[in-house]
């Protein structure tokens, strides 16, 4: 099975601003620090992690909304980071994005119909005469009727706005959809509707999803494979059942144990991590998770030696020196 998306050694460092109050050596913010993954056509890879782990930056660099510092991204055999301006524009038709905040990503002065038609104009995919029918078709596909076309974003609910965002992304018939926290801003009843919609659209169009999210319960519902990020790196990757059923990395374990389960009778063996996520300016040496790691076998080796992502069979990889003896 060849991968539609192949990311190798992706790095994004931002120069930290140096003011007159903080002179000295220039520092870098290591937002993403050597991330690799594949996604096969028609599959969903979820990138999960907490605030500041770099998951959103990964999505943005793939679309070249920010330029990567290093690494390689191959999309259907094309080296994306090596493309010039025009070929990149053309390729963007095949890779679309859905953002977290649908009210922030729609132009408030454009009607829903115009917002959905805009990509059709830019990529010359429909004539003026064809556009209204295509817009109505796209609206129907995301569960809205044609009466929404002349409305403005402020007249819509959050869920309806997110549907418009999805229709707009679909308008150019993309192959890859990068969904950056697409249901985070929505209420649970609406979240369920949008998750079902994304599932239906994937089946109907054989879409490939990179699903960026922090909610592990949502991720379990949508993903085929999951990659867990911590401090700019992937610490564990596995097919969804293995990751949730037999996590190897202590961070994955802690993360899973912290998710509140809507069942008052459920046993709660919460692993409460101490401390905060490390500063991306100066991540800890060795394993970046070691200062917070609850693993009983943790040793000084963890502070010294960077654990590589190692294969544990069944498509599972984890970056822990003690991956053989998970907590």
């Amino acid at each position, binding site marked *: 099975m060849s991968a539609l998306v192949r990311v190798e050694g992706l790095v994004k460092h931002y120069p930290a601003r140096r003011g007159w109050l903080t002179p000295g050596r220039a520092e870098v913010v290591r937002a993403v620090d050597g991330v690799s993954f594949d996604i096969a056509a028609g599959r969903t890879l979820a990138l999960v992690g907490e605030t500041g782990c770099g998951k959103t930056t990964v999505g943005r660099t793939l679309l070249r909304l920010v330029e990567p510092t290093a690494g390689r991204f191959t999309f259907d055999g094309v080296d994306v980071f090596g493309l010039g301006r025009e070929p990149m524009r053309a390729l963007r038709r095949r890779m679309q994005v859905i953002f977290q905040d649908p009210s922030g990503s729609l132009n408030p002065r454009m009607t829903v119909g115009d917002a959905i038609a805009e990509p059709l104009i830019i990529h010359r995919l429909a004539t003026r005469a064809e556009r209204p029918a295509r817009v109505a078709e796209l609206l129907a596909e995301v569960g809205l009727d044609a009466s929404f076309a002349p409305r403005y974003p402020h007249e819509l609910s959050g869920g309806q706005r997110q549907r418009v965002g999805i229709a707009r992304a679909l308008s150019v018939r993309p192959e890859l959809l990068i969904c950056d926290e697409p249901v985070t801003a929505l209420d649970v*009843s609406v979240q*369920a509707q949008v998750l079902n919609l994304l599932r239906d659209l994937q089946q109907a169009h054989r879409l490939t999803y990179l699903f960026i999210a922090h909610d592990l*319960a949502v991720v*379990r519902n949508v993903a085929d494979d999951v990659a867990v990020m911590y401090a700019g790196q992937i610490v564990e990757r596995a097919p969804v059942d293995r990751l949730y059923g037999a996590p190897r990395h202590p961070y994955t374990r802690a993360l899973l144990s912290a998710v*509140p389960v809507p069942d008052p009778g459920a046993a709660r063996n919460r692993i409460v991590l101490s401390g905060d996520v490390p500063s991306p300016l100066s991540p800890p040496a060795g394993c970046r998770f070691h200062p917070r790691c609850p693993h009983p076998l943790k040793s000084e080796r963890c502070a010294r030696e960077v654990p590589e992502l190692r294969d544990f069979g069944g498509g599972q990889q984890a970056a822990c020196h003690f991956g053989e003896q998970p907590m």
Partner: protein
Amino acid sequence: MTAPVLAVRDLKTYFVTPAGTARAVDGVSWDLHPGETLAVVGESGCGKTVTSLSVLRLVPEPPGHVLPGSLIEFEGRNLLTLSAPELRAIRGNRIAMVFQEPTAALNPVFTVGEQIAEVARVHLGVSRRAARALAVDLLNQVGVPDAARRAGEYPHQLSGGTCQRVMIAMALVCHPQVLIADEPTTALDVTVQAQILELLARKQAELGMAVLLITHDLGIVAGTADRVVVMYAGQVVETAATGDLFAHPLHPYTAGLLASVPRLDGARGRLRGIPGAVPPATAWPVGCRFHPRCPHAWDKCRTEEPPLLDGPAPGQSARCWLVSEPERRKPA
């Protein structure tokens, strides 16, 4: 059962908007008993936050107003009729509040130590030096490492989780009877959320305070609440002990909410969800307010508004005609 420490009766808080009068909270009643955790759950716009703001009279007036006839009884007095000084003596003292956005709720130009100390100076009348020592002690108690140094820092220097610990420390200065926690962990990452929930539970046990927990997260409710009030469209639609609510939800909205949540322990695949969206507060539907989205609705639901009807479990009631006509419930 003991007398409630806080009782809300027929609370109505309306807002005047260009689109008409928004009946944000429309006849809400509940009791909070000493030492218990009562969760108020619901989605955006159901009135749960306005309810909690009304309790402390923090609703901006205008455009909002609490209607005459509403009652909020605390220690035998109606908070809605107190004078401003009387209210100030209760707010932050007997009843304290923790908000959703800790970074927004803290004052950016004072150190966190000064902000905690201010509460002690105002309500306890202690000296500057004693207040400062108390602030450091409280920061210690809520698990802020290196508390003495942290007390001298400003909110922007702290993480969201630490800011929320500071908010909790502020709320605990006077050992309140009641702590209102409005989405206290919504802005936080899940591992930090676990820390904060643990902290709240520990302090609640130590101080014996009652907690009113406002949240949209049913997972948090299941893990922390003794009883639950479910709100929809400005009304209480169901109330029950936590175990009963999750095991046998009476109201179709409660059942729909539970079916909407993706879970770590459930089946994967399509979620049942609830069709449609919450109507605007200026135009609640006639009859049962949930009927346009309800899979069971029949003619009666479209015309007659159901009262809260008692269900089979003690203390469980729901605003739904199905309680009196259970044979009409369609199988899931």
